[in-house]
Structures are given as C-alpha cells and as structure tokens.
C-alpha cells in the first residue's frame, strides 16, 4: 500500500469531490438555476469514468486485501457511473417540476454511487456493509425527496424502516458468520470452510440471514414487498436509480461473496436460491399483468428480472458469472431507457398510467421507439439486449443441470411478453378519440433526445453484436474465478 495506489481510487475521490462541490455551489445558485446543477454532477461522473478507463485491466489489492480493484469491480464501477450519469442527465426536467433541494439531490446520487462502487470492490463483510449503508442512506433521503408529496414521504419512511430491518438481518448474519469462522474477510472465510466444511446450525443461520438482507436489496421474494410501494412513491429518476443501481449493487455484493467467500459450500445453497429465483420471477410477472400504473408495472417487472439474475447466482460458476454481468449490463441499459421514457412522458403530461400512453406514437416517435425497444428487450425478444444476455446466462446455467430452474425461467421470460405488449399496444395501436387526435406533438429537449438515442443504441448493440460486452463480462468473471 503506497500513495500511488490511491490513484486507483481516483474515480471515487472525484465523485465525492463533485458531490461536495455541487452542494457548495448550490448555496450560490439562484433557485431557478438549481436544477441545472445536473450538468456539473454529470460531468463529475464522466471524469470519474475517464479515470476508471485508464486503470482498465490493472489489479490492485489494498488495505490488507480488504479492497480489491480487479476487472470485476471495474465492470461494476463503470456500470454504476453510467447509471449515475444517465439518472442525473435524465433528471433536470423532473427536478424543475417536482423537487426542491436540487443540489443535494444530485450530490446524494453521486454519494450513493460511491457506496455502490465500494461494495463491488470489497472483499470483506464490514467494508461491503458500510458501503451498502452509504448507498442506502443516500436512497432514504432521495426516495423522500419530493417532500410536498405524501406518497414520496411515505415511501421514504417505508424504505427507511424496512431498510434498517434488512440491515439488521444482514449484520446479525455477518456476526454469526464471523463467530463461526473468525473472520469477516471473504478469503479467510473460504479458507476456514476448506478446513472445516460444516460449522453447524449457526453457519446456516448466518448465511440465511445474509441472504435475507441482500434479498431485500435486490427485491427478491419474499423480501420484495417494499419495492412496489417505494418505486411508486419515489421521484421518478430515483425509481430508475433504485431499479438498476441499487439492484446491481446488491447483486455485485452477492456474486463476490459467493464466488470468493462461500464458494466451497455453494452446493448446499443452489436449490434454495433457485427456489427463491423461481418464486421471484413468477411472482413479479404474474402480478405485473395486473398493473395499470407504469411505475408499478416496471417495479414488478424489475422484481421478475431479479429472478432471472438469481438463476445465475443459483448456478454460479465462471460462465454464469459472465452471464450475470452481461445480463445486468443489458438490463441496466434497457431499464434506464424504459424509465427515461416514463420520466420524459411524465414531465410532458404529468401522467404515468398505462392508459395515458394512448396515441404516444402520434405525439413522439422517439419516445415510442425507445419504449418499444426497451420493453421488447425486457421481454427477451431477439435483436434486443434482453434476448442476448438471457440466452447467454441460461445457456451457461444449463451446465448446472438444474433443468427445472431453467425451464421455469424460460417459461417466465417467454410469457412475460404478454404484459409488455399490452403497454406497447397502448402506445402504438389503440385508436385515439377525436379529442385526443388534436393533441400536439411532444417537444423533447435535445439532451433528452440524445440520452434516449444513446440508450437505445446500447440496447441494440448488446442485442445484435455483443462481443465487446461479452469480453468485458468475461474479464470480470475471470477476476473472480481465475483462468
């Protein structure tokens, strides 16, 4: 550990500095210009990305192995920065209409991102846990940021209470694991497991509690109940952030933990995680069919998506890890696209019901196009990211021979197309009434058009020619599994 190693933490340092700068500048910014603080915040994320790009391929262990900067962490750090960038860039219009305290809003997004970046690099429970708390604290405030909206406040309170409860489960689980193995470091835990394969009941309880705590973060059944309420109540950009950033952070935690710490005992847990995966996706998909509100629909759909990723955790090996990284990347681009459409639509109309999409095709071709691409990708249609990444993931998962799991996952994925099509149908094809015919076309700001197009290109890129992304995902996977 020497000073130059800190250079590898520059992305995080830049984000923290940007956040503090944004908070400071906020004081001197007139109220009507505050939403525009998004641009310096987004620029900070871009600079951090540039620093990250420089360190591509470099491996570093820091703080006695507490922190490991490898391709796995690079992959996720890049992902989180991308998410932060898009969420921030997608926010100003919404912030202007709905939120106060714009500076704090953007800064907190950056801070949560720092937390997420900490999680993926941690090879030790406490560092990962405290990073998770950094993510969560940011979200507690962000979810209830629309203070004059009862729904937002309620969502914030719910998220806080349930989040604290899940943190309790997680911490208790960590303490039990520490009690059994005498360490909180993943490598030491794995070593202890090699010598002592069975620590008895307390071990089972500890791992189960850790899984429950992380199950909350990724909104897996039966720890999902907060998600629909919080997704619906939170400010839209934060819902988007939750559905991709927070979820991806939870999965990064899970994957590194299982790959580096619990891998020796993973076989005991495969079926249990598989059952949770199936319940999660089936539940999410079935309930999504009933929804009339776009945010709630996307909430349940993202619960279902977490189920697909859990298939990868249940069948964890080097290939499924690549599959999960790839799927998370594709899902992130896709879901961001879907949410940005909802955000811009909401900015222009103040509505978020599925029925309200009627005739969108006539009013904004771009919004309809991006919505179509995103939803078809979520539904797993070929040519879009969702098909390619799921195909890769399930193909890799087939090696586990858990055919029931794969069959149910495929069935879920194939039938989920139904409710996505119902949404699309409203946008494209439901006939308009005379009065609706008269409504003017939408005018989107140019930055909105740019981000939407960018995300759409990403989704198609991953869907049609994913080589670059596959290479990155496999590099990330190799960092954990060697080879």
């Amino acid at each position, binding site marked *: *550990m020497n000073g130059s190693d800190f250079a590898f933490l520059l992305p995080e340092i830049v984000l*923290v500095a940007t956040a503090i700068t944004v*908070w400071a500048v906020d004081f001197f910014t007139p109220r009507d210009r505050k939403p525009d603080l998004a641009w310096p915040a987004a620029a900070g994320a871009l600079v951090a990305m540039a620093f990250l790009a420089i360190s591509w391929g470099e491996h570093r262990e*820091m*703080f*006695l192995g*507490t*922190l490991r900067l490898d391709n796995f962490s690079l992959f996720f750090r890049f992902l989180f920065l991308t998410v932060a960038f898009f969420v921030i860039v997608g926010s100003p219009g919404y912030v202007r209409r709905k939120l*106060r*305290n714009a500076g*704090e809003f953007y*800064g*907190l997004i950056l*801070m949560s991102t*720092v*937390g997420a970046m*900490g999680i993926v690099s941690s090879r030790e429970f*406490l*560092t990962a846990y*405290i*990073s998770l*708390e*950094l993510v969560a*604290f*940011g979200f*507690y*405030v962000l979810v*209830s*940021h629309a*203070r*004059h909206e009862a729904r937002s406040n309620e969502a914030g309170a719910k998220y806080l209470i349930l989040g604290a409860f899940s943190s309790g489960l997680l911490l208790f689980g960590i303490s*039990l694991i520490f*009690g*059994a*193995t*005498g*360490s909180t470091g993943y490598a030491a835990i794995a070593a*202890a497991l090699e010598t*002592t394969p069975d*620590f*008895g*009941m*307390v*071990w*089972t*309880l500890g791992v189960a509690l850790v899984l429950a705590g992380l199950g909350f973060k990724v909104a897996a059944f039966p720890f999902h109940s907060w998600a629909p309420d919080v997704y619906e109540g939170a400010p839209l950009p934060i819902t988007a952030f939750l559905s991709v950033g927070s979820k991806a952070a939870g999965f990064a935690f899970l994957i590194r933990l299982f790959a580096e710490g619990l891998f020796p005992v993973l076989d005991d847990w495969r079926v249990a995680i598989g059952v949770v995966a199936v319940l999660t996706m089936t539940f999410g998909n079935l309930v999504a069919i009933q929804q009339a509100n776009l945010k709630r629909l996307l909430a349940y759909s993202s619960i279902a998506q977490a189920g697909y990723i859990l298939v990868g955790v249940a069948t964890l090996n080097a290939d499924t890890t690549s599959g999960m990284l790839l799927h998370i990347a594709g899902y992130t681009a896709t879901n961001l696209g879907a949410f940005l459409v909802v955000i811009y639509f909401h900015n222009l109309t103040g509505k978020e019901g599925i029925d309200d999409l009627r005739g969108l095709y006539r009013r904004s071709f771009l919004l309809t196009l991006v919505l179509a691409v995103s939803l078809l990708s979520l539904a797993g249609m070929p040519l879009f990211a969702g098909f390619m990444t799921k195909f890769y993931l399930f193909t890799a998962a087939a090696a586990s021979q858990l055919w029931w799991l794969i069959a149910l996952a495929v069935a879920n994925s194939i039938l989920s197309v139904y409710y996505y099509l119902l949404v699309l149908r409203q946008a494209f094809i439901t006939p308009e009434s005379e009065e609706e015919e008269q409504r003017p076309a939408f005018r989107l700001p140019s930055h909105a058009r740019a981000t939407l197009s960018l995300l759409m290109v990403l989704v198609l890129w991953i869907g049609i020619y994913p080589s670059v992304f596959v290479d990155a995902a496999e590099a990330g996977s190799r960092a954990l599994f060697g080879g």
Partner: protein
Amino acid sequence: MNFAAVLFYAFSAIAIVAALGTVLARNIVYAALSLVGTMVMIAGIFFILHADFLALVQLLIYAGAVGVLLIFGLMLTNTGQPATGPKDRWQRPIAFVAAMAFILVAGYAAVSTDWMQGVVPQLERVPPAVLASSLFRNWALPFEIASLVLLVAMIGAIVISRRETSND
C-alpha cells in the same frame, strides 16, 4: 460461572429490558432514556471483552452525545402530549409470535453449534496506539466510508428538516 460471566448476563439482561422499553414505552422521553440505558449496558459488555477504548467511545458518543442530543431534540420539539394514534395492540401477538419463532431458531442454532470449532481470536487488551494504527491504516477505508455515511446523513437531515418556502 466466573465473575465476568455473571456481569455479562446481567448487562445483557438489562440491555434487553431497556431495548424493550425503547420500543414499548408510550412516552417518547422514556423511550429515549431506555435507549441510553441499552447503550450503557453495551458499553459494559465491551469492557468485559477487554475492548476498553470501544467501551469508552460507546459511553462518550452514544450514551453521552447521542443520548443528550436526542433528549434535547425531544425537549425542543415535544408538544408535551404523549403519542396518540392507532394502538396496534392486536399486532403485538403476531409480532410476539414472529419474534419468538426467530429467537427459537437463533437460540437453537447458538446452542447446537460447537463454537470452538472455528478460529476463536484470543481475548487480550489492545492498547489504543495499536488500535489507532490499525484503524487508520488497515481499516482506513471503512472508516472513511463511514464518514461519508455520516456526511450523507447530515445532508439528509438538512434536506428533510429544512423549512420549505413553498412557491406553488
């Protein structure tokens, strides 16, 4: 049973009772005081475990600073009326059942486990200098992240409590 064990069980019992008081008290000041009580007892447990520094910090910060801050906050904001609102008395039985089930499971796990199997670290007094160097070298990172968490919490507190000048 040696003296340390007796103390441990005593502290633990009081801590649990005080924690229950925090949750169950209908007067919020009592709840806050109970919380302070729990913190003090936990400090006591730290002492037994030879974690002197941690115990002192626990006393100073949680029992002292946080507790005082909490009570001051309550005094400044409390309208003087005990909390009213729905009394979810009927929820207590299920909460009780759920909690008991969890305690049973956890208790069974604790009892049935051979704790000496794992690598049990020797308990010895750690001088503050060693602790400090460990904290600021090897564990500097979680320490720094914790400071960020506090920063975020502070900003969050400001955002949530800031008086809004409504313009719509």
